[in-house]
């Protein structure tokens, strides 16, 4: 069957002129069928064209795996035109995951020793692009040979090929060290560039190599000086900078060599100062070199004058019209804001201005940096800026901004009133994006600021009048009105303009919240409780409250219904206790129990059983972890007794169980028991644990460190935990065998790192 084949360009034209996807598919299927048929035939003149067509089709997203063997055959062809396309096909179709990739190893090997440099170049390029670890191991000696004895065209390619090899198989780095060293002395820029990249890679992988290459710092400084000072060199010039690519690479290598080493850093000090001052910064390319210089200066042990110079360059970048430059300036400043805080503070004004930039990435960087720069001295002005940013920032940044503002306010608030005002401002602007703990935190803050109760309740009342859609704000407002409603009704306030309200007005507001479809169930709970509390703080409308409460006794929402029923009971049967139950809240301790859900502690009428505050989770056969983790439901036992024995690990004959006993309100004793049912002993067995900061850990000595075979004896270890903050703890535990057969549990403690 003869099939007419379109030449490559004709086929491309045909595909492009297809009006529908279906038509395009038709053209491609026809062509692919013809190509496949041609592949099966013996050698003919059009092989490279056919493969090129297939590669085009592949780029459009259609399957082309039947071309893999053709690539292998073409690579082995003596014709350069066929080799060229064959190697291109190999790079596109044969990555290291395909089995066929190994078949080309031999061809590559032969081509590496070809007399024609362009053929050698094809082989080097392909190896550096898709060479697998095995291929790299096989061909490394060839590459080494080429590094030493060939022309500069090949040497530069061989150097980069060596880089790829080292990235794939780290140990082979040893092989190239000597050759790399000698390449530095060559004149050809391409070769020197390749050598610098290779040396960088070798130093990164192996600290001994790094030590050895430190001696090259003077040579590198010389080369760099030559580039910076030399006159115009037409071959390598880019907008007045001589070979910026090589300059950047050398600077990077200097950075790696100068890190943590005084001597090397001193040797490059002058050069860096020179580059920093002499490089023309009007074009991007100059800024690229300056940027690399700044990164180097900040990473090595540079003297303070040089560091100041570097930070000033970043400051200049911040004022640059080019948005890209501003962006990278902020990225770099972010890295050093911890160590060179004062230097970065000087540019605070510019950074804050960047908050108003159009670009979302720039805004994000500016936000991160602004939050890092907040301090006690600038808190007021910074907060103004941050609050105005919050009202106009993109939605994805809002919650980060809100939490940043809260943290800053907590640390540096100049006064309580300012703190409360700030939090209220955030709640009104971005109420929907704040974290859940905000409500209880704010309530606690308000309770503890007894002198501002009147002011706070007035402010919140006004806020509630204008807007009841922001749930956290509404919740806090309801709570406050419930607590301090009497201050509101008194009609006098020192800090702010008092409101003249009647009891009915206040109850109206609360009822609006209760009935509004915008209110969450939890918010309505707040409102109902507040209404109830007011029954002891108002004098005339207690009946109205009674009726509200009894209406909600038949509410659909179970939570509200339960509350209403209980409050009803409080009115009917326990009226004598009502005043005592609903009196003013005491000052809340920072970490007390009632803190967790923001509800009043006085909810003692409704006993809510919360899950035990220590959760044990075991994950069921997690797909990315080949080890056994099993999931268990959090225990729903009450807080007061948790005694459970749980098997947390069971693999390869080793079993570890965990049992805990609650000793006190915040203390827990965990007993870990390990046993071994394999045929051989396990030695050097240790158990360790790590916990978050607020929890105190005390590990008692284990009963032993070897697990005898066949469960002859067990190893037990006791761990005492003290969890005063009732922080949730959850942990996953995986065991592995790193050495031989002895499972080793690692942990972090300060002695390990």
């Amino acid at each position: 069957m003869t099939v007419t084949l379109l030449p490559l360009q004709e086929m491309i034209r045909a595909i492009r002129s297809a009006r529908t996807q279906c038509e395009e598919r038709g053209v491609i299927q026809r062509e692919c069928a013809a190509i496949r048929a041609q592949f099966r035939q013996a050698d003919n003149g059009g092989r490279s064209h056919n493969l090129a067509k297939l590669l085009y089709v592949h780029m459009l997203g259609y399957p082309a795996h039947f071309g893999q063997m053709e690539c292998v055959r073409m690579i082995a062809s003596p014709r350069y035109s066929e080799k060229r396309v064959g190697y291109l096909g190999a790079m596109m179709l044969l990555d290291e995951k395909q089995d066929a990739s190994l078949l080309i190893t031999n061809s590559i090997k032969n081509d590496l020793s070809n007399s024609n440099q362009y053929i050698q170049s094809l082989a080097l390029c392909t190896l550096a692009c898709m060479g697998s670890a095995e291929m790299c191991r096989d061909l490394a000696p060839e590459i080494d040979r080429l590094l030493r004895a060939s022309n500069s065209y090949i040497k530069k390619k061989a150097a980069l090929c060596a880089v790829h090899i080292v990235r794939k198989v780290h140990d082979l780095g040893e092989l190239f060290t000597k050759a790399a060293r000698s390449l530095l002395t060559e004149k050809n820029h391409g070769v020197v560039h390749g050598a610098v990249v290779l040396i960088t890679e070798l130093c990164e992988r192996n600290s001994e190599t790094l030590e050895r290459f430190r001696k090259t710092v003077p040579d590198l400084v010389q080369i760099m000086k030559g580039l910076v000072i030399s006159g115009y060199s037409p071959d390598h010039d880019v907008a007045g900078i001589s070979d910026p690519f090589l300059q950047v690479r050398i600077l990077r290598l200097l950075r790696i060599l100068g890190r943590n080493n005084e001597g090397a850093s001193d040797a490059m000090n002058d050069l860096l100062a020179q580059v920093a001052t002499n490089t023309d910064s009007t074009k991007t390319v100059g800024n690229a070199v300056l940027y690399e210089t700044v990164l180097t200066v900040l990473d090595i042990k540079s003297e303070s004058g040089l560091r100041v110079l570097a930070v000033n360059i970043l400051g200049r970048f911040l004022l640059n019209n080019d948005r890209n430059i501003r962006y990278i300036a902020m990225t770099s400043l972010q890295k050093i804001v911890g160590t060179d805080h004062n230097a970065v503070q000087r540019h605070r004004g510019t950074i804050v201005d960047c908050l108003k930039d159009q670009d979302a990435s720039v805004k994000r960087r500016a936000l991160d940096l602004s939050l890092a720069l907040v301090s006690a001295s600038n808190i007021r002005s910074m907060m103004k800026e941050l609050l105005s940013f919050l009202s106009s920032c993109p939605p994805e940044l809002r919650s980060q901004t809100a939490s940043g503002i809260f943290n800053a306010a907590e640390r540096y608030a100049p006064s309580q009133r300012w703190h409360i005002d700030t939090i209220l401002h955030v709640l009104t602007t971005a109420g929907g994006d704040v974290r859940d703990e905000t409500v209880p935190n704010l309530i606690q803050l308000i309770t503890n600021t007894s002198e501002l109760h009147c002011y706070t309740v007035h402010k919140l009342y006004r806020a509630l009048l204008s807007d009841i859609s922001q749930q956290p704000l509404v919740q806090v407002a309801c709570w406050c009105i419930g607590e301090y409603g009497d201050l509101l009704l008194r009609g006098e306030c020192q800090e702010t303009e008092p409101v003249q309200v009647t009891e009915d007005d206040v109850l109206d507001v609360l009822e609006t919240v209760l009935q509004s479809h915008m209110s969450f169930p939890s918010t309505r709970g707040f409102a109902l409780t507040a209404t109830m509390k007011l029954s002891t703080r108002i004098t005339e409308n207690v009946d109205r409250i009674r009726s509200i409460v009894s209406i909600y006794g038949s509410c659909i929402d179970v939570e509200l219904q339960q509350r209403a029923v209980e409050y009803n009971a409080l009115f009917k049967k326990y009226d004598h206790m009502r005043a005592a139950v609903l009196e003013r809240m005491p000052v809340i301790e920072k970490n007390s129990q009632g803190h967790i859900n923001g509800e009043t502690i006085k909810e003692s009428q409704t006993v809510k059983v919360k899950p035990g505050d220590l959760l044990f989770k075991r994950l069921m056969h997690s797909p990315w972890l080949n080890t056994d983790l099993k999931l268990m439901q959090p225990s729903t036992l009450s807080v007061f007794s948790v005694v459970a024995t749980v098997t947390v690990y069971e693999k390869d004959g080793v079993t570890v169980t965990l049992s805990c006993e609650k000793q006190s309100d915040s203390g827990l004793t965990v007993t870990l028991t390990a046993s071994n049912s394999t045929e051989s002993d396990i030695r050097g067995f240790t158990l360790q644990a790590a916990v978050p900061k607020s929890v105190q850990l005390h590990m008692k000595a284990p009963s032993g460190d070897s697990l005898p075979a066949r469960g002859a004896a067990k190893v037990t270890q006791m761990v005492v935990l003290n969890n005063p903050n009732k922080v949730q703890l959850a942990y996953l535990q995986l065991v592995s065998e790193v050495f031989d057969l002895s499972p080793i549990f690692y942990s972090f403690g300060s002695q390990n790192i």
Partner: protein
Amino acid sequence: MFEVMKFEWAGRSGLIAFRSSQSFVCCLISALTKAGTTKTCQPIKIIMFALVANQKVVRDWPCFGVVLGGSFLPRGGYTVLLFKMQFMLLFSRQGKLRLQKWYVPLSDKEKKKITRELVQTVLARKPKMCSFLEWRDLKIVYKRYASLYFCCAIEDQDNELITLEIIHRYVELLDKYFGSVCELDIIFNFEKAYFILDEFLLGGEAQETSKKNVLKAIEQADLLQEKSHSA
């Protein structure tokens, strides 16, 4: 603030974020990946302890805490810096791919997924925006020349500005070769575009910093191709 480090171990790489104090070190780690890929590899058998206690996760990766023995963590707070171009894509304003060069081994399916996502992300950017964006754990540097977007993915520590220069150099080479290059040239002569790229970059790194030398080499290779074809 968490300190973030990249580390390599047994041919695999990952990210650690840690903060240390006198009494403990809290460590969140991202999934270990095989070096050079974005795919999660088969689990290395290590013991890990994860503590999630109201801590903000540093990255959106599946998280385990890992404790690292002294022989594994680099000494003295030394960080392995990674600079490498992972891939380069050229695509039109309609999202059609014109050239793709991958310097990391990924399956076809993964490449398609990455391409699709990235093309969508870049095309959604407005004209005056920054040329850099953070995507997954890579930095993307892109620039639009006429109707084509040139897009490079570089690793965390690489210099974005010099990558812009690399993109610019490649465009200049294409321009010189084709004589005032346009998108159609790259469509109909895609294999030549690849050959030029392969003469300029090798394994993701620039191999020749002189424009003249690159063009000379291409010329010579083309002559050789002519000769062998007619032979």
